[in-house]
């Protein structure tokens, strides 16, 4: 084994672009492992974890590109790194005029600019947001790892200026039919959303679209907005804006359970809203908030969709949303062949909301799942990489995404975990989610398919029947081909639902039928 390192001074690239470069490096002959990163301290320690400690790496600064490979031989490492500049040039649009480098320059070129979309490393984000707000721009802040004090300060500043600050850690929004970040292609319509839960917003808007209705605006707040530390500043601003918006006839609010003070503030604002509001506080149970006046409570995203559609005069039956798989009966038969050791659901999620909602659905069915993002502290996994009994893992959480791409764009870690769970004789059913839409992987199912097949075959070789259940979040209009993605899963024997809630409920029913 040989290690090779190359650096490029003052060449800054974004992490998604570098992921593509890394993939090409990894495909080079004789390369076993590779990393292409900017030279931040966090990235340097990641390289050290891989066993790469080179004087060039030590001297690299956040503005310097670092490429490292571990290969079969020194020649292979050198040959791979010799292509680095070609790989870097490959992603740049040829002949494009140089882009502005600061917001100020950008505004000179686009004086009509009204929204800054910011997705730079979290440590630099607050300064950039402040510049944007000061320049009178609304902000969609995708970056995570922004300190909570900065979030509060910036949201207050936004409030003073009458501007909307969505985020930090805001994955999704749809404004006037345009999707920001990870979002799905949905038609415009009468339903507005405020969501502190990114994939929850994607599931809600995709299902509304599938049912023939549409979205006026979907405002993301960032996951921390409804904590007491922030007090729901963006959620309340979003609710007020949707209350005033003529196109919006009903507003859905989707979140994990808010902090008590933030909830009081939100409920007070909902009471003075002139439109029907549907509250979906995942994981809370029905006792947290009671329906009152114009507020209705939904315990799942599916239910929030149904109630919202009813409010705009498009009532739907449960079965019209995310229809069950025609394979359900076959899979029920298959589950009867589980061996004695196979007792547990193992869920591996790209969507944090799906992980959380699935735990709630399992709990309602009497199954208590462990998780790295648990409903109750006592169910927290000691080691996120080791499942215990029923386990649902949020693979988009920080421990899996620090200096690594999110599982919605890169399936590498999830594929490894599928093989691990498939090899565990206690795993009865694997539960997966696939998220389509703008900025998600071009082929999310394809990235995991051979992992799923290997896991199923491996279990079979061990005398076990491994059941795989999945949900797909997305619309027919998304850049990925929804039908083709579904077909790929079905051909691999996976039972596919168009709703994460229904996939989780199906897993619970399989396990309970097998004796819990």
């Amino acid at each position, binding site marked *: 084994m040989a290690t090779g390192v190359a650096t490029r001074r*003052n060449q*800054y690239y*974004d*992490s*998604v*672009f570098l992921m593509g470069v890394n993939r090409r490096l990894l495909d080079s002959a004789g390369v076993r492992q590779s990393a292409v990163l900017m*030279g931040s301290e966090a990235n340097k320690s990641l390289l050290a974890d891989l066993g790469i400690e080179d004087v060039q790496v030590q001297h690299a*600064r*956040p*503005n310097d590109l670092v490429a490292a490979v571990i290969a079969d031989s020194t020649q292979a490492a050198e040959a791979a790194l010799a292509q680095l500049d070609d790989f870097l040039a490959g992603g740049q649009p040829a002949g494009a005029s*140089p*882009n*502005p*480098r*600061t*917001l100020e320059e*950008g*505004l000179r*070129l*686009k004086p*009509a*600019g*009204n*929204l*800054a*979309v*910011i*997705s*730079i*490393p979290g440590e*630099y984000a607050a*300064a*950039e947001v402040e510049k*944007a707000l000061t320049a*009178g*721009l*609304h902000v969609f802040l*995708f*970056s995570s790892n922004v300190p909570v004090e900065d979030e509060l300060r910036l949201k207050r500043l936004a409030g003073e*200026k*009458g*501007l*909307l600050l969505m985020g930090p850690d805001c994955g999704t929004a749809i*404004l*006037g*039919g*345009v*999707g*920001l*970040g990870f979002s799905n*292609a949905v038609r415009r319509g009468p339903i507005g959303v405020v969501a502190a839960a990114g994939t929850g917003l994607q599931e809600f808007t995709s299902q509304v679209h599938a049912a023939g209705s549409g979205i006026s*605006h979907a405002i993301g707040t960032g996951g921390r907005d409804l904590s007491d530390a922030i007090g729901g500043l963006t959620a309340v*601003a979003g609710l*007020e*804006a949707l209350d*005033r*918006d003529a196109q919006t006839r009903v507003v859905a609010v989707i979140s994990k359970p808010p902090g008590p003070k933030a909830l009081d503030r939100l409920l007070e604002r909902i009471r003075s809203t002139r439109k029907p509001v549907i509250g979906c506080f995942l994981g809370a149970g029905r006792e947290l908030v009671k329906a009152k006046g114009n507020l209705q409570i939904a315990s799942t995203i599916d239910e929030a969709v149904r109630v919202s559609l009813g409010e705009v005069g498009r009532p739907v039956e449960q079965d019209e949303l995310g229809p069950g798989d025609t394979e359900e009966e076959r899979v029920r038969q298959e589950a009867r062949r589980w061996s004695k050791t196979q007792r547990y659901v193992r869920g591996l999620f790209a969507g944090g909301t799906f992980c959380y909602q699935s735990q709630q659905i399992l709990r309602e069915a009497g199954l208590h799942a462990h998780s790295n993002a648990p409903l109750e502290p006592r169910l927290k996994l000691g080691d996120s990489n080791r499942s215990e009994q029923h386990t649902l893992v949020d693979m988009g959480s920080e421990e899996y995404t620090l200096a690594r791409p999110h599982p919605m764009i890169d399936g590498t870690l999830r594929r490894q975990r599928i093989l691990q769970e498939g090899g565990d004789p206690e795993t009865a059913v694997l539960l997966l989610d696939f998220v389509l839409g*703008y*900025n998600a992987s071009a082929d999310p199912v394809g990235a995991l398919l051979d992992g799923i097949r290997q896991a199923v075959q491996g279990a079979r070789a061990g005398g076990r029947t491994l059941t795989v259940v999945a949900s797909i979040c997305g619309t027919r209009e998304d*850049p990925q081909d929804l039908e083709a993605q579904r077909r790929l899963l079905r051909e691999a024997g996976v039972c596919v639902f168009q709703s994460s809630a229904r996939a989780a409920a199906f897993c619970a029913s399989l396990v309970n039928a097998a004796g819990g």
Partner: protein
Amino acid sequence: METRVDQLLQGTIVVLNVGLRSFAESLERQQAEVIQIDWAPPAGGDKEMMELLDQFL
């Protein structure tokens, strides 16, 4: 009274995209107006230098 948020929701968004280039590409795909800002860490990412610069600017 119409607020700035109302104007955003009723009007057309014009985006300044600071960071992931793929975000700008997906906006272009949706025929939204967007300009890419090629951001890089200020002062080469040197924190002390950034703070010094902030004091002067």
